[in-house]
């Protein structure tokens, strides 16, 4: 099986599958109450220099109350798997990102990310390793399967592959070139869900993005949830459990935890807030002012919700057919 090409990019998170198994072996199988607030979850489970990932699509199910707390606690020199809009922009704005497994960071219809530009063009983000969206998700899937790599026909023939850590090999069955994507095992995964019980059994409504894959690729997993439900409700519909409890280290109750992002069937995206960020993030000073106002000057998610205001939050719910319940 010939190796045709090696991506030049570094493997930002080297891995050993047997070490991952040993780590997973040590996680409790017992049903333990894992409820805690953002401050405790972030301080207990995230360290400076960790490799972290957020599961979301655009601003949908964005684990923002957790990301705000990471910024508040100033967890630094983070390595991050990058597919995001607002929440990764905030991490970059706060200067906490040292390296990126990059796929997309931008403001979608509002254009380029100025924070990404400033951090990368200045060299403060020291490494950008390139991937496609699906490639990152497949890398999580490889880790979730407990295998060292997954094959794909994505990225072939491009500079995206050249600046990744993938390899192109000759398929030993058919002889064609195929890309191999190395497993990506996160130190910490952050996922915001619709419902979870106190043990971490979690449900997501609608499309599931890459939540199942990332949850299973995370050594430590912090779940934030719109609401905590009794385990009896989990057992009534076991097929709805996308994330089983034994993967989870912390369960943080965070209503509107995705704001200014949306939660399908519950509340819409806060478009003016996103636009305000798009404007503020253009210049370092206004960026800092935004971070002060919405993160540094606040103690927790509740103070954030108070700042946004009950009335506005209800408006965002009311935009959803059925009023967000």
């Amino acid at each position: 099986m010939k190796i045709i090409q090696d991506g030049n990019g570094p493997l930002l998170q080297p891995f050993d599958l047997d070490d991952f198994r040993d780590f997973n072996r040590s996680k409790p199988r017992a049903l333990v109450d894992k409820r805690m607030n953002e401050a405790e979850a972030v301080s207990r489970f995230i360290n400076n220099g960790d490799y972290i990932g957020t599961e979301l699509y655009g601003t949908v199910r964005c684990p923002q109350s957790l990301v705000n707390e990471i910024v508040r606690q100033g967890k630094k020199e983070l390595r991050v798997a990058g597919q995001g809009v607002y929440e990764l922009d905030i991490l970059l704005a706060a200067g906490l990102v040292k390296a990126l497994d990059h796929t997309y960071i931008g403001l979608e219809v509002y254009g380029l990310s100025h924070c990404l530009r400033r951090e990368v063009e200045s060299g403060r983000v020291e490494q950008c390793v390139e991937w496609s969206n699906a490639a990152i998700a497949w890398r999580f899937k490889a880790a979730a399967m407990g295998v060292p790599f997954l094959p794909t026909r994505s990225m072939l023939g491009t500079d995206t592959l050249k600046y990744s850590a993938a390899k192109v090999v000759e398929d030993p069955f058919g002889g064609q070139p195929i890309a191999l994507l190395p497993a990506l095992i996160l130190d910490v995964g952050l996922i915001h869900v619709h419902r979870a019980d106190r043990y971490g059994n979690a449900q997501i409504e609608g499309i599931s993005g890459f939540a199942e894959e990332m949850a299973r690729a995370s050594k430590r997993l912090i779940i934030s949830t719109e609401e905590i439900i009794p385990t009896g409700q989990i057992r009534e519909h076991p097929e709805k459990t996308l994330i089983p409890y034994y993967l989870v280290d912390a369960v943080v109750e965070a209503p509107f935890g995705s704001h200014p992002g949306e939660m399908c069937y519950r509340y819409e995206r806060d478009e003016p807030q996103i636009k305000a960020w798009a404007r503020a993030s253009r210049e370092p000073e206004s960026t800092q002012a935004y971070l002060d106002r919405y993160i540094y000057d606040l103690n927790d998610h509740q103070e954030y919700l108070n700042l946004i205001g009950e009335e506005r939050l209800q408006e965002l719910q009311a935009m959803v057919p059925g009023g967000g319940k």
Partner: protein
Amino acid sequence: MTTSSYNPTELMICTASRLMEDNTTAFIGTGIPMLAAALAQKTHAPNLVSIFEFGGTGALLEDLPLAVGERRSFHRALAASGILDVVETAQRGFIDYGFLGGAQIDPYGNLNSTVIGDHDAPKVRLPGSGGGNDVGSHCWHTIAIMQHDSRRFVPRVDFITTPGYLTGPGAREEAGLPRGSGPYRVVTPLAVLGYHPQEKRMILLATQPDVSVEQVQENTGFELLLAENISQNPPPSPAELSILRDDVDRDRFYI
């Protein structure tokens, strides 16, 4: 075109919409492709199967999705799964059309959305591939939606984020990309372009209303092949514009 009764965005939406065939599957990205798909469903392609990257298949685009993952992207859909199911479906050959954008495009339809300048010391750091590379690798036909000037239409892109025909005929297959897949059209405010069946180089197929072949070439940083009969696109019809303005984007989110 400033004096015309429609703006360039509306023109591009209508042009892209007309390229969407009924009863085909189309991988829809944020922005113009969403409006074009919604317009197509409400006009000539009621059975267009919209596929959104993060899991929505066959949604009814009654309300305009604002992003590829939000509820409108799987509103009354036929299936709602996740990103890997969708991209694997493309990899298996089930997705007919895919829409792409970028900061640069070259004569072979290679796209750059990663970086201007050197990757490790960039002049401008761009958003990155996102799903672009996946769409450009697996969909049968890709349609690029671009602004049109010689800074964007370049002889050689600084970085190949998403594969077009790479270096020319046979290069995709040689790289291991799916046989028979590749760039199909480029839609701009000035023209609709395709690719020469043998040479795989960009060819001018049609100009937009009130645009000359010369204008198109002047705004293109490389020599375009010219189709034997270069047609002129009709302007957006009043019907298209009213559906677009009063229904598809009635909240004027995009236009």
